[in-house]
């Protein structure tokens, strides 16, 4: 048949195969210099673009099924493409396109055979993520899920010579695996006993509230571990900085979303009943995560680590939206559920764009300066303007500033929060506006973080003489960033169209859709009376005023511009070390929220020749939760180890005792 009468699902599966083949090809091509970067990556990017189109088309086309001849005997891989998968495929493809184009320039400098291997895992990673979204039975889902985890692990440990990176990778894979096992258990509950592992059967399975709750909690744990939900987030700030920047971009921008996808799929699609307190739980966890993440982002001094923490924050916001949706949904408020669900999806999409953009931006900085510590950067705007301006777009977007995309999803979410008086339980009516306050706080802090991020890296004076040699990023890198930045702007300017495109997904999940009461220009999710926002007008007005002022100032007053040294209240001897460091910038936040962290300071003593002051804010949860677990495990294994102390007589006694015990047991 011609490509045109293939259903989207076949296209999607075709691209997955295509990526797999590309992976194999890159393994073979790794000895030919430059072949991988100049050929394989562009081809993968092409695949991503097509995937985005396929996903988009799936939003409007009917659901399509597809069964592969592989898998378990009674359980071949079932694939299914509905609006939900379509949306996330769209997200995957469009974001991955930019990142892959970027990667083409980024990995040029890498040794050929290494980049060959890397490209293999890169393509496997893409294929795995796509397959997760397509899977329609538990086995296919788990296989794809773990392929995704494994390939990303190998990507994270690209520079495995560095012990920290090995440690990060290990932590990542460990938590991913534990999460996966709990997902297994979740499917074990869902399958309802008769080995019915396809999602279709699970949709039919009738659950008691107890088992449904068990399934939900397991899913929340499993997917939360992947998404970086507090307190399962500890791997994230380690692994994302460790990986090469394009990989961090993929992981942070897209992989985390697959967890969100799974959460939505299981809660709203597979489970046949939902319970209110799930929503409250998710809301609470989400808000905790959001605040925790943004607070830690504010005190980081490593730029990629800062971004990783900010990813945790955004995931928190998404999960909070998820919880809110559940609350509305279980309360029978379909319309409101639709609103918050729209906010959720919108934010997921936005985050895919701006977080990938920021990560690859840091990648270019890393390339140009070989420096990740913000305390050694600065003033790069003059040496790499493209990178700087494009990153600025991302920074403003993630800070939730109009008219960019970050603002819209937060606006929608806040609107949803404001609509809670409709709810039946009074205590929720009260609690939820407070939750809105938390969201607002997180958003404001995000602005703080981004000013710190952009200001310290790109503005001011270079804190290191070497930075004067920094060069602008190569053209593929710029192209990749441009694509993502454009995405941020468009998603910000065309909310009406985007929400309309999201409608099928929202209908699929919540049964209702967002009615846009405004025109093609004005977004009015509930009613024009209620709330409205028109970024285009907004943008136009700002632009016009800006232009007018500019022209007017030029026309009326033709003052010349003189260049001079900075004034700075007339202080002499301005040098770069007088600027705020990253730590300094985060200090107020640390002072306010010190309770959350364990701060390790290194104070100089009065007689130091070269006094140094350093402080690191460490994650308290690691010490109160994870280290005790580790200690407990080794304690147990010590006790168990005692059993095996080498004397054969004792071993005989074990057998003897076992024998006697069993004899007594069976004849009792």
């Amino acid at each position, binding site marked *: 048949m011609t490509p045109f009468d293939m259903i989207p699902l076949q296209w999607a599966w075709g691209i997955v195969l295509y990526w797999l083949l590309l992976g194999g090809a890159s393994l073979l091509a790794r000895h030919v210099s430059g072949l991988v970067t100049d050929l394989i990556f562009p081809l993968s990017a092409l695949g991503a673009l097509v995937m985005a189109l396929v996903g988009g088309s799936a939003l409007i086309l009917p659901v399509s099924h597809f069964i592969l001849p592989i898998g378990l005997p009674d359980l071949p891989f079932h694939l299914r493409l509905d609006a939900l998968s379509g949306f996330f495929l769209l997200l995957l493809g469009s974001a991955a396109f930019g990142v892959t184009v970027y990667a083409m320039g980024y990995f040029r400098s890498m040794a050929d055979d290494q980049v060959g291997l890397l490209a293999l895992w890169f393509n496997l990673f893409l294929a795995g993520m796509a397959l997760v979204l397509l899977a329609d039975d538990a086995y296919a889902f788990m296989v794809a899920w773990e392929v995704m985890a494994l390939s990303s692990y190998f990507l994270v440990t690209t520079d495995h010579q560095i012990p920290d990176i090995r440690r990060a990778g290990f932590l990542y894979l460990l938590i991913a695996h534990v999460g996966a096992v709990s997902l297994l258990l979740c499917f074990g509950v869902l399958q309802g006993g008769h080995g019915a592992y396809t999602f279709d059967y699970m949709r039919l399975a009738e659950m008691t509230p107890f088992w449904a709750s068990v399934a939900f909690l397991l899913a929340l744990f499993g997917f939360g571990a992947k998404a970086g939900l507090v307190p399962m987030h500890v791997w994230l700030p380690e692994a994302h900085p460790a990986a090469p920047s394009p990989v961090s971009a993929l992981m942070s921008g897209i992989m985390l979303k697959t967890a969100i996808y799974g959460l939505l799929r299981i809660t709203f699609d597979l489970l046949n009943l939902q319970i209110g307190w799930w929503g409250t739980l998710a809301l609470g966890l989400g808000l905790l995560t959001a605040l925790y993440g943004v607070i830690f982002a504010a005190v980081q001094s490593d730029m990629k680590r800062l971004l990783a923490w900010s990813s945790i924050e955004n995931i928190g916001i998404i999960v909070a939206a998820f919880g809110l949706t559940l609350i509305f949904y279980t309360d029978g408020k379909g319309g409101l559920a639709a609103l918050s669900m729209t906010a959720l999806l919108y934010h997921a999409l936005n985050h895919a764009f701006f977080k990938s953009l920021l990560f690859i931006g840091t990648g270019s900085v890393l390339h140009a300066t070989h420096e990740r510590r913000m305390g050694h950067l600065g003033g790069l705007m003059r040496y790499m303007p493209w990178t700087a301006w494009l990153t600025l777009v991302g920074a403003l977007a993630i800070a939730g500033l109009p008219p960019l995309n970050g603002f819209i999803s937060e606006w929608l979410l806040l609107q949803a929060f404001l609509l809670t008086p409709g709810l039946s339980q009074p205590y929720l009516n009260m609690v939820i506006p407070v939750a*809105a306050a938390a969201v607002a706080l997180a958003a404001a802090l995000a602005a703080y973080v981004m000013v710190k991020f952009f200001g310290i890296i790109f503005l001011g004076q270079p804190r290191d003489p070497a930075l004067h040699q920094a060069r602008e990023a190569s053209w593929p890198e710029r192209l990749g960033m441009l694509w993502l930045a454009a995405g941020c702007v468009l998603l910000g300017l065309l909310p009406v169209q985007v929400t309309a495109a999201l409608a099928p997904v929202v209908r699929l999940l919540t049964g209702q859709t967002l009615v846009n009461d405004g025109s093609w220009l004005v977004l009015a999710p509930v009613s024009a009376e209620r709330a409205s926002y028109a970024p285009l007008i907004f943008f136009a007005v700002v632009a016009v005023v800006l232009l007018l002022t500019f022209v007017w100032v030029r026309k009326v*007053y033709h003052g010349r511009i003189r260049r001079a040294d900075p004034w700075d*209240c007339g202080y002499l001897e301005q040098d770069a070390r007088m600027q705020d460091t990253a730590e300094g910038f985060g200090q107020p936040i640390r*002072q306010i929220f010190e309770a959350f962290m364990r701060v390790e300071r290194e104070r100089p003593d009065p007689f130091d020749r070269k006094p140094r002051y350093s402080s690191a804010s460490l994650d308290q949860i690691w010490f109160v939760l994870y280290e005790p677990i580790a200690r407990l495990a080794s304690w147990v294994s010590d006790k168990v180890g005692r059993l095996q102390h080498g004397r054969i007589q004792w071993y005989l006694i074990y057998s003897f005792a076992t024998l006697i015990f069993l004899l007594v047991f069976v004849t009792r």
Partner: protein
Amino acid sequence: MTTGILLQIAQTLAAILLAPLLMGWVNQCRAWLQGRSAPPISQPYRTLRKLFQKDAVIAHNASPLFRFAPYMVFACMALAAGIVPTIANDLPFSPAADAIALVGVFALARVFLALAAMDIGTSFGSLGARREMLVAFLAEPALLMVFFTASLISQSTELPVIVQTLAHKEFVIYPSMAFAAVAFWMISVAENARIPVDNPTTHLELTMIHEAMILEYSARHLALIEWAVALKLFTYSALGIALFLPWGIAPQGDLSALPLAVLVLLLKMLLGGTVLSFMEAISAKVRLFRAPEFLGTAFLLGVLGMLIHFLLEV
């Protein structure tokens, strides 16, 4: 519609032109209250004209961002002034941005200013930026809370609708709005860099916030910023008026009420300016570390107001 647009433009222009006047009035009052001989009320205009005529001096390493920021800030403030109902209540722009978006506009301006402050890389610049953001991250959610209280009452985040509900529906006493009012006062003091959070008149490096950010600006850039500051003060006053004493703002499409509205507005503004200067005169600047507590209180009051709303008014 056309009248609406004309009205809109008129109101915006009026705001832009009147803003320095308010500033001048506040300074004058304060001088009187402090027993100094007051500058003329038109002093801000003179300052602006002087600044515009000067040659601009810019640091060697200033990036385009540095020169772009003042225009951006000014534009944002103009937009803000445009969407807050000051004299009339049907404004074509208002659908463009509701209360939440308004907060976004302020935030946008602030972020650009902070970035510009860090651009030169002086010690004071980055210090000012940091302090500004510190104030902001508490003030913004607090402001949102105030708006939420109002919009929970009026079932809308559209400023005109809010004003409509508060002013033109039958008169109800909202206890929650009392909390909101106090919170709003504290916020606007902080946001406009007034005592007790900041002192607009000194360049004392230990305490200054706003001034520290704009140290490197001169001439027309400085002028734009100063104007934007005045505009911000004006907008905040207009906001306060719209939220807490909205009576007198002309309702939808009745032009006859306009002259009255203008009159009432001027009166309110005079009143507000007096009160502001009075408060400034009697209170002392708090230490910087106290600022978060000050704003935290505002935030809490905002949240409390909302809870009160749920307790008493639903």
